[in-house]
């Protein structure tokens, strides 16, 4: 577990380059308190400018007053441009630049229903999401309060109103208490006698307003644990090449700030494959606990070999997409052939062929990093070929198996959603909201008001099993907000639990692995983590409990 000193100012840092290694999510709040105006920007294409208002929303969640956060993408920015009398306010004499939103602009997934520029409507037939009408956010001043991180063996959480881990009814008829000893939840409910005993036993009490108990989150597809500063190679495990077939567990570097930050945002577990900071990975992924100090910690590695990964993108093709698909198909076909006796003797453990034999015999899933619909179509065609070979060469002697393929990335996967569903291929969208940044992703759906939903909506409608992964490491801190995005803009496709499953149990189902001790890992929030402004107040994992008071 990381040091408790890493709390407050420096607890939520993110580190793309050395220069950013001391950044703080509280920066806006601190600057404002010191008389300096914070504004929020996209640096498009670094962030998609389409969602720059979400930066302001997160700033509000991180303690910046609501009105300052909203000014930070409207009036304060306009003033800095010398246009403070013309732009950024709804006031007589200002330019007629107006947005009508489907929900509070600082809520998760707030979406315009119409935009006017200089009085002219900008969307002729805007898609309007079917969303329950909600009142504006009532600014929560508690978000401005600094919390202190502590580790405690014995904790009571009060005022829990919902348990989103529960199979069935998650709503408590009255708010309840949760009693924890060494990360084990010993009582949920009124727990009358237990409360008396615990109070006498000096349990630390965390008083909540509107407590939510949820499963923990799993980051899938990132370089978490294999890379500390994106732009600094010295901090990387180092990726892969044509010759090597690395196992991520051999390169895992724990106890970094990236991991500490992910942990403190509820990302307790991660599945990482050898890569260099994008979805493009090759080798064997590892499942580990983000709060571990080293791979030798008890429970740190909960699954040494999760899946076999290959990239099939423009950036990683060698020399072409067609040849990369061909090479992979050839290798998989070769792996379906039984070995001769003398070959068996010389079988090289941990080799590429060794892992591909595990893939074709159904023991490990094959995860392919790919965005482009055409390449996904090629993968579906390849699967047909391999499945035939498996049926011919392997299945007659053993139980029937099929190639288990997972698409990681999937910006354009929605274009072949039905075919993916038919081929029983699942998709981990990474990121959830791509924006045509590369040619491979050029047909990314921007969502309402321009398109009827985004990729996830189309995939869910087609019956594809979907998860949300991450592309870049910083995204591992916002998994619940991405789940919230899918939920809020999903027009009823997902329940809250199903939304949280996108960054939890779905990942395990997709990879066909059993989630390790899912009940002994939990998160307790004040507020609904699928909404803006929920704060993580307790984490239970691997025998330890971290709280924020």
């Amino acid at each position, binding site marked *: 577990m990381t040091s408790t000193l890493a709390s407050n100012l420096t607890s939520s840092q993110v580190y793309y380059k050395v*220069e*950013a290694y001391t*950044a703080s999510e509280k*920066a806006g709040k*601190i*600057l404002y308190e010191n*008389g*300096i*105006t*914070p*504004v929020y*920007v*996209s*640096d*498009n*294409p670094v*962030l998609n*400018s389409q969602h720059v208002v*979400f930066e302001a929303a997160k700033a509000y969640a*991180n303690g910046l*007053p609501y*009105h300052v956060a*909203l000014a930070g*993408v*409207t*009036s304060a920015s*306009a003033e*800095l*441009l*010398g*246009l403070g*009398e*013309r*732009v*950024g*306010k*709804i006031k*007589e004499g200002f*330019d*007629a630049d*107006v*947005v*009508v939103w489907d929900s509070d602009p600082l809520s998760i997934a707030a*979406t*315009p229903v119409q*935009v006017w*520029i*200089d*009085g*002219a409507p*900008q969307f*002729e037939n805007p898609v309007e999401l079917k969303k329950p*009408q909600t009142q*504006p956010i009532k600014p929560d001043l508690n978000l401005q309060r600094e919390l202190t991180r502590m580790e405690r063996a014995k904790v009571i959480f009060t005022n829990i109103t919902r348990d989103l881990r529960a199979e069935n009814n998650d709503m408590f008829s009255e708010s309840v208490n949760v009693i924890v000893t060494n990360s084990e939840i010993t009582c949920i409910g009124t727990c009358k006698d237990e409360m008396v005993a615990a109070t006498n036993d000096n349990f630390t009490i965390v008083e909540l307003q509107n407590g939510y108990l949820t499963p923990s989150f799993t980051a899938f597809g990132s370089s978490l644990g294999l890379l500390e500063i994106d732009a600094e190679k010295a901090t990387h495990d180092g990726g892969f090449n044509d010759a090597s077939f690395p196992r991520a567990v051999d390169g895992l570097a724990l106890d970094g700030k990236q991991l500490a930050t992910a942990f403190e945002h509820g990302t307790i577990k991660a599945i990482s494959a050898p890569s260099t900071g994008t979805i493009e990975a090759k080798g064997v992924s590892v499942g580990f606990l983000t709060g571990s100090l080293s791979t030798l910690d008890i429970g740190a590695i909960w699954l040494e070999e999760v899946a076999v990964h290959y990239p099939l993108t423009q950036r990683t093709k060698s020399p072409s997409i067609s040849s990369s698909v061909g090479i992979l198909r050839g290798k998989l076909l070769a792996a379906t052939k039984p070995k001769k006796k003398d070959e068996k003797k010389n079988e090289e453990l941990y080799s590429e062929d060794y892992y591909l034999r595990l893939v074709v015999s159904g023991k490990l899933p094959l995860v392919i990093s790919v965005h482009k619909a055409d390449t996904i179509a090629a993968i579906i065609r390849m699967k047909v070929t391999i499945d035939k070979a498996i049926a011919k060469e392997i299945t007659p002697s053993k139980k029937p198996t099929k190639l288990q393929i997972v698409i990681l990335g999937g910006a354009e996967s929605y274009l072949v959603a039905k075919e993916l569903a038919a081929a029983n291929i699942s998709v981990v969208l990474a990121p959830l909201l791509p924006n045509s940044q590369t040619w*491979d992703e*050029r047909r990314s759906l*921007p*969502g309402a008001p*321009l398109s009827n939903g985004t990729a996830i909506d189309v995939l869910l409608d087609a019956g594809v099993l979907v998860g949300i992964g991450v592309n870049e490491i*910083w995204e591992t801190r916002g998994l619940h907000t991405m789940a919230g995005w899918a939920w809020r803009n999903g027009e009823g496709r997902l329940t809250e639990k199903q939304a949280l499953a996108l960054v939890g149990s779905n990942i395990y189902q997709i990879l066909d692995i059993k989630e390790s001790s899912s009940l002994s890992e939990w998160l307790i929030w004040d507020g609904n983590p699928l909404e803006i402004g929920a704060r993580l107040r307790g984490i239970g994992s691997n025998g330890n409990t971290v709280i924020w008071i």
Partner: protein
Amino acid sequence: MEKTYLDDLPSYDSVVRQWSKKRRSRRLIRVTVIVSILFAAYYFTQISKYSINSSKGLSVSKLQEQHASCQSLRHVPVDPSGPRLFNKRWVNGTKPILIKNATVWTGEPSPGTSEEDARRGIGYNWATSDVLLNYGLIVKVAPNINATDLPEDYETYDAKGRQLTAGIVDMHSHAGLEGFGGLGDDTNELSGDITPYVKSLDGFNPIHPEIQSIKSGGVTTSLILPGSGNNMGGEAFVVKMASGKSNGRAEISQEDMLADPDKTWRYMKMACGENPKRVYGRTGRGPYSRLGEAWEFRHALEQAKKFVESQDNWCRAANRVGAENMGEYLPSDLRWESLGAVLRGQVRVNTHCYTIPDLESYVRHTNEFKFRVWAFHHAHQTYLVPEILKRAYGGTPAAALFADNSK
């Protein structure tokens, strides 16, 4: 969008040329007088044009024109004011719109709120209101706007109680500079580290599809900055995210997208730290380190300062001896013109700086050369050193941040 043109209201062209419809009576007399004056003016211009400063062979009229420009050279812009008859960006044919039943965030606290309360957010509210748009302006914000206040031929939009805000302003965007799908890129002019003389507008593609998708997130105004590969990246431009007829504009054009057609302010991008080092730093070639970057900044600013001084000296001399007696023309140098404008206070400088050494070094430059930086971008370590920011010349810069993606 289909557009119907209104006869009695200004069109986009007439906005530029000013209204000219006048009564027909006395028109002939007027025309005659004007023609005579124009002819006389032309005649004298021609005479002076060819009158040569006898000692140096310079054109007197050019010297006089340049002398006349001295005042505008030193002009310090004032923010354009709000209330107007019409918005110069307004396109004739855009129908007035009454947005009914919205829940409005005006962006201002209610009248009478003390400054202290406003800082804490007291007085800011979402309130039920109608909003009337006409002539490209917000002309009325009030609950239940009276029928008598409504123009003819307006359209109604029922907001159904939903939240309404001003359009989002993104003051750090490279939208339209990079090719679609990552093909091609006009973000950085990497021919040299000091390129204050280039302009992002020259690479800005007004039909880039991302303009529409970005706007679909509510962004109506963007500061289009050159990239951060250079210590001095070039001039930036504020655009509205509306392009072409389908967005209610008269045409597809870079200039048409400028948020302030009067170009009151100019903008410039600069950058500190790792990027220019990474782009240019080689043994024997700089900037190799932050030391070299500080030199690059100061050296460029020194050139610009010399240039500004040479112009000011010329203007003073012309005031003293008369423009026609000047022995040379007003100094001009495109390389340092825009940076000179920075020193003259005409340019809102936006600088990409992350770390304490970068911030403090840059703040030193502002004081040494007396120019203002309006915002530090990325600015990850600003929260550790507000005191340094407050020492910047001409006013405390803002910090333009990401909420949690520290790139």
